[in-house]
């Protein structure tokens, strides 16, 4: 009997999520600082075969993947500001409570956030390891979380090319 009551209590606690109509208002880094981060996400995560697709929870919009404009086409015309905004909204909607905590703590322990857990493949990720802790792409993202985007790291990470250049 005691076990059953304890189980019921735990169940109530564990299943007590937001209400059906509830809205979680989180704290996230500013969208104004997001464009260089968006470019990195596009290059590393945003192709059609990965997160540049409507089927993903984390959607990355841009030239090489999903287009925001329904009349748009993949591979044609540069990424628009609307697409950067849409990617921002998608990104900050992923585990917003964790993102809020990291943001409020000045970007400390960013590896708590699932975007980094998956990107670094600390947690199972079908797309494999797309970020290595401390590399340019990773630093771009974590510096954004810390509120001080490292532009040079982002610029470097936004360029993804074959080893040895295009002469293969």
């Amino acid at each position: 009997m005691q076990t059953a009551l304890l189980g019921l209590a735990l169940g109530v606690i564990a299943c007590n999520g937001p209400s059906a109509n509830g809205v979680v208002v989180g704290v996230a880094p500013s969208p104004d600082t997001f464009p260089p981060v968006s470019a990195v996400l596009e290059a590393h995560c945003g192709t059609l075969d990965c997160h540049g697709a409507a089927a993903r929870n984390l959607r990355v919009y841009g030239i090489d993947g999903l287009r925001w404009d329904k009349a748009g086409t993949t591979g044609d015309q540069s990424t628009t500001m609307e697409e950067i905004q849409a990617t921002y909204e998608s990104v900050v909607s992923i585990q917003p409570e964790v993102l809020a905590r990291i943001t409020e703590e000045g970007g400390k322990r960013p590896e708590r956030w699932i975007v980094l857990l998956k990107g670094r493949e600390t947690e199972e990720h079908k797309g494999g390891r797309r970020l290595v802790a401390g590399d340019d792409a990773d630093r771009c993202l974590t510096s954004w979380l810390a509120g001080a985007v490292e532009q040079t790291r982002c610029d470097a990470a936004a360029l993804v090319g074959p080893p040895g250049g295009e002469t293969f």
Partner: protein
Amino acid sequence: LKSRYVLALSLVCVAGCADPVRSDGIDALGDERPGVPEGPLHRPGEPCVLCHGGSGPGDPEFAFAGTVYQVASSTVPLANAIVRLVDSRGVKFETGTNCVGNFYVRADDYRPVFPVWTKVVFGEAGGVPVEQIMGSPIYRERSCAKCHGDPVGPESAGHVYFAPDGVPFPSDGCPQ
């Protein structure tokens, strides 16, 4: 009794563990085109690795496969083009397109570590081979048609083509 139980459990798992998304995708492709037997010339423009992904029904398994067309506005195949690939380690592979534009890379021949970059090479201009490099790398998809399906749109780059409309190509149809 125990072995029967294990056998029954295994059968349930085999029956129930198939990937329904993949099965639905294969069913949606429909039947073979009349007069075209299974083989290198069949099903151009379709997502090859759906069947040739290692879990059947297609055999052999492909590391990559797809179809290359001449131009964006039509589905005239580009035969005798070279498709080159390089993976994140710098390991390269190349193959050619056949008379329907199909190419394939057997998984036994190439086990790339993603991302992979690719280009199509065809003909020459001023003694230099003409090539078209794909703008973004491939991160996981092994069927070109999965991302390059028609029609072109907000979630598809359209079929793989080599040149702008109006560029003349030699006629290289399949032998009748």
